[in-house]
Every structure is written in C-alpha cells, then in structure tokens.
C-alpha cells in the first residue's frame, strides 16, 4: 500500500481569481487517516491558507461534507486508503455557492430548514406540574430514523432537482419536517403542510433517490418525501370530499 497519496484540492480565493482552480498536495496515507486528516495535514504543515469547515471528526456535527472524487461525502468518515493509489479530488459541496476554497454558503438551506419548523409545535403547552410528555418506544420508533439527520447537506449536493431549481425546499428539510410530524408530542403537522404542499415543496421531488444513497446517517430522505406525498394526497382527497372536515 502506498504510504503517501495525492490530494487535488479545489481552491477559490475571490480576491485573487474568478474561477476555482486546483492545488495538489501529497499527504501521508496511513490506514486510519480520513480525507479530513489529509486536509488538516495540508493546513497544518503545507498551506495554512486552505479554508474548509470541520468540527467533531466523528460524523455527528455535519460540518465537513465535501465532494470526494465527485461524490458527496463526510470527509471525517471517508478513508484515504479507499482511494489509493489516488489522486483524491476534493471539492466543495455541489449545488451551493462557494465562499472560499471548500467552504460553501449554507444560508439557503438554513432559511428553508426554519420554514418547516423543525421543533415540537404545541397548540397549548401543558403546565410543568403535569410532568413530561411521555412517549412509548413504539412512538419513538415512528420518527427515530428521521431524527438521525445531522444537517450535513450531502443530500442537497446529490439532488439534481435542487441543482436545477434552487427554490426546491430539498430533502433534509422535508425529512426533518417528517421527523416532527411523526412525533406523538407534536401538533404542528398542518402548519408544516402549508409549506411542504407548495409547488417548491415536496412536489418538486421527482424521486431521483440519490439523497438516500449519499446520506451518511441512513435517514432515507427520499422515503420520507414519498411518504409525505402520500399523506398530502390523502389529505387533499379528504378535503375535496369532506370540505367541512366531517
């Protein structure tokens, strides 16, 4: 096995250039090193100007998503040896504006995420004296899969619909809406439905399915969206035949 591997890292320095370029760095390639280790080696030892996001190094924070050889990956969970003998091409997440080097502007996602109210909505909070909102293990299982989302945005990067239509609300936002809709403590489903049943909501999804393929936490956003479509369709039919909610 090669003890070093070449990284081809996308660079974009807006004060210097109007297009992205690539810089090459040769980094050590021990079997326990992930792509993020390689980038940290470059930053610490070779080129301190390289800019990228990272935090936890354990697949929880969702900060270090990048394109690795054309695929959206968490760089903290992508081993360099899997790409030996290299080179490994590291680029910023596709479908997002690039601010610098490997850093993308996530403002669009953050705005969309807030519109689906990814928190427990209660019509009326019960008093503290009545204790917690209890939940059975079966009720937890209903939404647990969707609660694993870490907002890494790999799904947005894999989704050609989002790339072609930036108004599309996107896979993670819908999966997180579903996470709260399926929570027995939540009462905000109808509020979320207003956002999600809009043209740029869940109907924008044409079920390419790549969001699920690239999800590092096995959330299955594509499944969540199809499930939500079925719910929305049933609600529409109900509203048609029972306009007064009978």
């Amino acid at each position, binding site marked *: 096995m090669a003890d070093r591997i070449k990284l081809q890292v996308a660079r*974009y320095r*807006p*004060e*210097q*250039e*109007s*297009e*992205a370029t690539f810089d090459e760095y040769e980094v050590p390639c021990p079997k326990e090193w992930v792509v993020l280790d390689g980038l940290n080696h470059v930053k610490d030892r070779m080129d301190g100007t390289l800019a990228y996001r990272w935090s936890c190094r354990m697949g929880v924070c969702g900060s270090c998503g990048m394109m690795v050889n*054309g695929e959206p990956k968490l760089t903290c969970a992508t081993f360099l040896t899997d790409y030996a003998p290299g080179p490994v091409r590291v680029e910023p997440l*596709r*479908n*997002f*504006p*690039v*601010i610098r080097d490997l850093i993308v*502007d996530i*403002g669009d996602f953050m705005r969309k995420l807030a519109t689906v109210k990814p928190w427990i909505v209660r019509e009326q909070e019960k008093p503290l004296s009545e204790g917690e909102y209890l939940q059975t293990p*079966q009720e937890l299982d209903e939404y647990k899969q969707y609660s694993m989302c870490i907002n890494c945005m790999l799904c947005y990067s894999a989704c*050609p619909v989002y*790339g*072609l239509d*930036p108004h599309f609300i996107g896979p993670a936002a819908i999966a997180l809406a579903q996470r709260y809709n399926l929570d027995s403590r939540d009462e905000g489903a109808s509020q979320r439905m207003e956002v999600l049943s809009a043209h740029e909501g869940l109907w924008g999804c*044409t*079920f*390419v*399915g*790549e969001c699920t*393929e690239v999800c590092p936490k096995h959330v*299955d956003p*594509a*499944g969540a969206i*199809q*499930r939500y*479509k*079925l719910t929305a369709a049933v609600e529409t039919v109900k509203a048609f035949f029972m306009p007064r909610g009978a």
Partner: protein
Amino acid sequence: MSQSQVRSEYQQPVLPPRISTWWWLGKPSYFAFILRELSCVFVAWFVVYLLLLVRAVTQGDASYQEFLAWSATSRIVLVNIVSLLFLIFHTVTFFDAAPRAMVVKVGSNTVPGSMVLAGHYAGWVAVSAVVCWLLLGV
C-alpha cells in the same frame, strides 16, 4: 477578478453553483432517473393508442379492421415494443418506490416493505390475468 461578482447575503463574493446540461450522464442512477421520466411519454402513447382503439371499435367493423391493419405495420409494432419496455421499467421503478411511501400497519406491527412490494406485484398479476381472461377467454 470579475467585476460582476455574485455576492452572498452577507456581501461575500461567491462562486455560484453550476450544473451541466449533461449532468444526467454523470451517474448511472441519474441516467436511470431520466429514463424513468422519459417513460411518461410512452405511458401517454399507450393512453392515446387505447383511445384510438376505442374509437375504432365504436365506429364499426371496418374501422376496427383498419385499426388492426395499421397496428400491424412494422412502424407501430416497433413503437409498441419500445413503449412496452419503457412501461415495464416505469412500473418496476414505481413499485420499488411503493414500500418507501406506504407504511402499512397491522395492529401495532409494521408490514415489511417486501410484503408491500409483493402485494403490488400480486395486484399486477391479478389485473393482467383478468384482462387476459376478458380478451382471450383463457
């Protein structure tokens, strides 16, 4: 550096995302997706073909025989073979999506996705059998 630089909401200059016209050739899954979208054209063709058949039947025997002769031309046979292949592809991929959209509960248990999928195929076979029985009397 370009003077017409795109800027973020915080006035940072950014490199806007670009997507190639040929993005759908980039991965087999993207290509399969485009084929599935294209299959809608062939679904529409079969609807039109069925309507033409119904019209021919309602206009009498001569019209029906004319429709059969037209359907037997090599051009229409070829179109129908290609359409059938696309419809099978459309159906299979649609059925594959079904278990992910439908969470079927029996009591407190969730029916496995494979059973939901099997139910769809069973329905397909049943409907096909009824159509065969109506048309061929077999």
